[in-house]
């Protein structure tokens, strides 16, 4: 049974992003749909098949993953930043909520938003390429773990950041490049040697790969390395977020 305190914080965080659906749900929907239409349909005609599936279908897991990662990250980072700027972080810090409860509530809401956007992107893609899922449980676990990991990373970024520019640094300069270079739009098999090695060193590649196995039943590295990589990232990011919260760094004087 979850206590009233963490449940209140979790529901507040969910209601917060639902109050601005244009920004939190509609905007990523439009963006990822455009990716899908441009890369999947206009270029997809030339590429025919990748790894034995039509190109339009091949890119769906990557776009779904991009939606989950970005939205889980932005939910925690922007919410904490707003609380710091508005001064309402005080309301939380004077409460009897434990560090674990605070982190769980924030990350839980980030997972809801990440999964919600991922589902919407998948539904739009399904209208064009079919909705079949090869391993639904695997796909769900990969997405949920990724959302937890990036929700926790967003939490850390929100605590660290002093400005919204710093909040946006991570998605702009880290998440988006790593995702684009992480096999969203191509298979690692298609790349020449050095680029292929670089792709294989990118953690996002394994996350996309894990989801691709769950959704399409195709994978470059097999079903488990990706899932293991995401689980490891989850553990590290949650532990780091909890340690930062416990230390009071940039939150308590």
């Amino acid at each position, binding site marked *: 049974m979850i*206590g*009233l*305190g963490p*449940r*209140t*914080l979790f529901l*507040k965080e969910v*209601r*917060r992003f639902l*109050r*601005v659906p244009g920004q939190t749900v509609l905007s990523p929907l439009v963006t990822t749909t455009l990716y899908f239409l441009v890369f999947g349909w206009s270029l997809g005609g030339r590429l025919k098949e990748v790894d034995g599936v039509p190109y339009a279908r091949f890119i769906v897991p990557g776009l779904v993953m991009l939606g989950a990662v970005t939205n889980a990250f932005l939910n925690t980072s922007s919410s904490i930043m707003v*609380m710091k700027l*508005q*001064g*309402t972080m*005080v*309301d*939380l*810090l*004077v*409460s*009897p*909520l*434990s560090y674990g409860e605070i982190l769980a509530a924030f990350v839980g809401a980030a997972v809801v938003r990440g999964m919600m956007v991922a589902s919407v992107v998948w539904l739009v893609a399904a209208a064009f390429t079919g909705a079949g899922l090869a391993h639904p449980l695997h796909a769900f676990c990969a997405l949920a773990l990724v959302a937890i990991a990036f929700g926790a990373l967003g939490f850390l970024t929100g605590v660290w950041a002093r400005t919204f520019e710093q909040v946006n640094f991570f998605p702009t300069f880290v998440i988006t490049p790593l995702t684009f270079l992480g096999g969203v739009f191509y298979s690692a098999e298609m790349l020449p040697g050095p680029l292929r090695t670089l792709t294989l060193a990118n953690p996002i590649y394994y996350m996309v790969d894990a989801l691709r196995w769950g959704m399409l039943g195709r994978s470059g590295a097999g079903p488990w390395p990706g899932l293991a990589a995401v689980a490891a990232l989850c553990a590290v990011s949650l532990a780091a977020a909890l340690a930062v919260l416990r230390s*009071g760094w940039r939150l*308590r*004087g």
Partner: protein
Amino acid sequence: MEAPVVSWRGVTKRYGDVAALDGVDLDVPRGEIFALLGPNGAGKTTLISIVAGLVRATAGTTTVLGHDVVADYRATRRAVGLVPQEINFDPFFTVEETLRIQAGYFGVRLSSDRLEEILHALDLASKRHANTRALSGGMKRRLLIGKALVHEPSVLFLDEPTAGVDVQLRQALWAYVRTLRSRGTTIVLTTHYLEEAEELADRVAVIAGGRILVVEEKVRLLERHAAKTLRVALSAPVASLPPSLLALGARLEDGGLAVSVAAPPGASFGPALSALAGAGLPVRDVETRRMRLEDVFVSLLKQGEPGDGP
């Protein structure tokens, strides 16, 4: 003596080489309005932030109802309500939602009766469904007080509660603070408006440079420190005073149109009044003036050095 509600023991807070608090020992008795007075930067906000969990002390222990604020933070935070100095609001929610969310953080489900009571007491009932962004500054400040009260704390900290507040609202807030005290809530007030402390406080602590200079019941502090002045206005100027008045320290003012005699705390003006009557001066008016808390505060700060207190 009854155990204090809040107790600081040897509390020090350092920011690098600067000591915001330097070994503070202080107790807040139950059921009182306790004013922490001090100039800006004296350490008032740091002191209460340590109790509320916003700041961690470098050394020393702080307890609320006997519980340590670090080791047993859940118990102490349930007992404490904090009205911060800076106005804050969450632009995503209404007044009612804000109060319900804050209560939820404390594990309290806000009953309709309690919600109504807070909204009416703070004159926010008409704004119940308004977004907090749409509230005036005074309303936002009242909402801060409401948020601090949702979990019915044993001790309420008000950090500069009437800074930038108009006279009417200030009077209303003071009345509500007295109501809370009458219901058994201990109030700790930080302020640099001496008028506020003089009006409200049962007990006063003066803090400067991170150290407590004096802690005393307000009435006794005023009695002990507050010198009096007798001022006699004359209908015609006089050139000099008779020896009987000069012996009492009287001096001429306003070009001979007034006589002023100072008396230390507790002393009587009887001899001065007898000497005045005996001198046959043309008395037009008489007024006495007692030092106010503000004068006592300034004089305590001038005595200055920590440890000069009683």
